C-alpha cells in the first residue's frame, strides 16, 4: 500500500486484488453482526427468488447522509416479516425505520451490503408511535387537528363519497346496512376506489380525497371504509400527508376503518370515527332517525300546542261570551228592578197623595158641616137677644112713659085748686073773677068765696090794701 504513495515506483493492483483485500479486511473487522437502525427507503423484494434487497438510508433532517444496500435472504425474510408484523401490526415495507441485526458484507462482485438476519420490531413500533405523535403535534400546531370535527355535519348525510375497496367486506356491510334501513331512508353512495392499508395507501387515499374535494358540492360527507382482512399496514393513517388532508378536508370525513388497536391520527381528526363500516351505517341511519325524530317531535308538539292554543282561545272565548251574557242579564235585571221600583213608588206616592187630599177634603167637609150650624146658632142667639131687648126696652119705655105721666099727674094734682081748698084755702071771686094780688075791689062789691064745703057770698065793706 506504501507503494501507492510513490509516484516513481507505482504498483498497480487488479481491481480484484483490491476488492479481495477489502473483503479480507471486512472479514477481519466486521466478523460479528451489528445492530443497526436505518430506514428502508426501498424494499426491492424479488418475488421470484423470494430474496429482498432493501435500500437502507440514514436521513438527517430529510437529507440522506448514508445509504447502503441490504440483503435479506428468503428464509430470513420470512422469519423477519413474521416477527415484525406480529409485533407492529404493520407490514414490513418501505418507508419505515427498523432496527436490525446485520452482517456488514463486502463482495468483490456486489460491493458493500448489509445482510439482515434479525430484526427488533419494538424499535419500529416506537418509531411508528413517534411518527404518529409528530403527526398529531404538527397537526395541532398547524391548527388542523380539530378542523374537520368543527365542520357541521349535515343533518341528513345522504350523498356519500365512499373511499373503499369495492370488493371489501366493509363496503358491502355499509351498503347492505344502509339499503336495508327499516325507515326507507335513501342514501346515495359514490365509490372511490383506493388502497386502504399498507404501501401505497396514503397516496391512493389522498388521490381520491383530492378527487372528492374537487366536487365537494356533490357530497355531504366522505366515508373512509375498510373492513375485513388483516389489520396490518394501518400506520398509513398516521401519516401526516394523509391525516392533514383528512383534518383539513372541506366536508366531514367519517372513518370506519375497522381495527382493534389504537385510533390512528386520521381517525382522530375525522369528523366522526366509527370502528366498523356497519357502525358508520348505523351512525348515518341514526342521523336520519334523529332528524325523523325531530320532525316527529315537531309534528307531535305542533299538534298538541296548536290544539292547546285553540282550546285556550276557545275557553277564553267561551268565558268572555258567557260573562257577557251574564253581565248583560244582570244589568238588564237591575234596570228592570229599578224601573219596577219606580213604578211601585209612583203607585204608592199617588195613593198617598190622593189619600192626603182626601183627608184635607174631609177636613174641609167637617169645617163645612160644623161651621154653618155655629153661624146659625150665633145668629139664632142674636135674634133671641134682640127679641129679649125689644121686650126689655119696650117695658122700660112704657114704664118711663107711665112714670112721666104719673109725675105730671102729681104735679097737676098738686096745683089743682080743689086741693088748695082742702087745706083751708078759699077762692074769692069778684064778679065771677078770682081776686089776685092786684085786684082792687071796691066796697060794696059783692064777693063770692068758694070753700071746700061750698060757696059763701059776701059784700066788701072795707078794704086794707098795701
Amino acid at each position, binding site marked *: 500500500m506504501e507503494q501507492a504513495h510513490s509516484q516513481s515506483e507505482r504498483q498497480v493492483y487488479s481491481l480484484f486484488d483490491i476488492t479481495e483485500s477489502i473483503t479480507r479486511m471486512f472479514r477481519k473487522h466486521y466478523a460479528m453482526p451489528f445492530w443497526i437502525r436505518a430506514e428502508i427507503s426501498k424494499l426491492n423484494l424479488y418475488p421470484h427468488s423470494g430474496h429482498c434487497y432493501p435500500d437502507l438510508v440514514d436521513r438527517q433532517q430529510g437529507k440522506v447522509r448514508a445509504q447502503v444496500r441490504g440483503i435479506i435472504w428468503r428464509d430470513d425474510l420470512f422469519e423477519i416479516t413474521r416477527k415484525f408484523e406480529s409485533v407492529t401490526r404493520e407490514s414490513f415495507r418501505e418507508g419505515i425505520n427498523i432496527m436490525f441485526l446485520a452482517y456488514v458484507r463486502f463482495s468483490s462482485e456486489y460491493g458493500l451490503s448489509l445482510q439482515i438476519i434479525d430484526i427488533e420490531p419494538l424499535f419500529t413500533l416506537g418509531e411508528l408511535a413517534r411518527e404518529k405523535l409528530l403527526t398529531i403535534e404538527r397537526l395541532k400546531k398547524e391548527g388542523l387537528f380539530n378542523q374537520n370535527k368543527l365542520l357541521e355535519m349535515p343533518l341528513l348525510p345522504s350523498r356519500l363519497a365512499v373511499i373503499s375497496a369495492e370488493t371489501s367486506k366493509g363496503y358491502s356491510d355499509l351498503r347492505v346496512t344502509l339499503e336495508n334501513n327499516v325507515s326507507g331512508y335513501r342514501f346515495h353512495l359514490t365509490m372511490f376506489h383506493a388502497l386502504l392499508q399498507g404501501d401505497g395507501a396514503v397516496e391512493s387515499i389522498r388521490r381520491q380525497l383530492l378527487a372528492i374535494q374537487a366536487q365537494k358540492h356533490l357530497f355531504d360527507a366522505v366515508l373512509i371504509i375498510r373492513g375485513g382482512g388483516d389489520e396490518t399496514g394501518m400506520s398509513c393513517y398516521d401519516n401526516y400527508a394523509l391525516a392533514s388532508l383528512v383534518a383539513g378536508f372541506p366536508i366531514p370525513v367519517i372513518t370506519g376503518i375497522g381495527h382493534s388497536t389504537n385510533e390512528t391520527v386520521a381517525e382522530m381528526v375525522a369528523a366522526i370515527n366509527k370502528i366498523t363500516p356497519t357502525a358508520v351505517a348505523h351512525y348515518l341511519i341514526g342521523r336520519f332517525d334523529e332528524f325523523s325524530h325531530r320532525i316527529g317531535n315537531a309534528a307531535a308538539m305542533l299538534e298538541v300546542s296548536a290544539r292547546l292554543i285553540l282550546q285556550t282561545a276557545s275557553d277564553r272565548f267561551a268565558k268572555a261570551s258567557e260573562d257577557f251574557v251574564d253581565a248583560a242579564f244582570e244589568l238588564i235585571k237591575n234596570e228592570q228592578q229599578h224601573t219596577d221600583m219606580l213604578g211601585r213608588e209612583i203607585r204608592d206616592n199617588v195613593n198617598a197623595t190622593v189619600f192626603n187630599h182626601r183627608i184635607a177634603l174631609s177636613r174641609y167637609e167637617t169645617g163645612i158641616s160644623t161651621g154653618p150650624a155655629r153661624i146659625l146658632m150665633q145668629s139664632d142667639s142674636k135674634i*133671641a137677644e134682640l*127679641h129679649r131687648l*125689644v*121686650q126689655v126696652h*119696650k117695658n122700660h119705655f*112704657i114704664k118711663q*112713659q*107711665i112714670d*112721666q*105721666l104719673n109725675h*105730671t*099727674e102729681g*104735679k*097737676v094734682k098738686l*096745683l*089743682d*085748686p*080743689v086741693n088748695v081748698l082742702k087745706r083751708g084755702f078759699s*077762692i074769692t*071771686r069778684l064778679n065771677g*073773677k*078770682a081776686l*089776685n094780688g092786684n085786684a082792687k075791689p071796691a066796697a060794696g062789691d059783692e064777693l063770692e068765696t068758694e070753700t071746700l064745703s061750698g060757696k059763701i057770698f059776701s059784700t066788701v065793706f072795707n078794704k086794707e090794701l098795701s
Partner: protein
Amino acid sequence: MKKEINYTQAITELEAIVSEIENASIGVDELSEKVKRAAELIRYCRGRLTATEKEVNSILNNLGNDENIQE
C-alpha cells in the same frame, strides 16, 4: 077729646099745661080748667099706654109662642 089727637100731641099739650100751671101765670079759674084738661090728657095717655102695652105684649107674646111652636 077729639079722636085725632095722638099720644105725642097729648103729652105735648099736657106738658104745656103743666108748664102753664107751674108758672102760676094763670088764674084759678083757668087753672081749674087746665087741670081738668090735664086730667083728661093724662087719662087719654094712660089709656094709650095701656092699650099700646097690651098690643105690644100681644105681638111679642105671639112671637114668643111662635118661638115655642118652632122649638
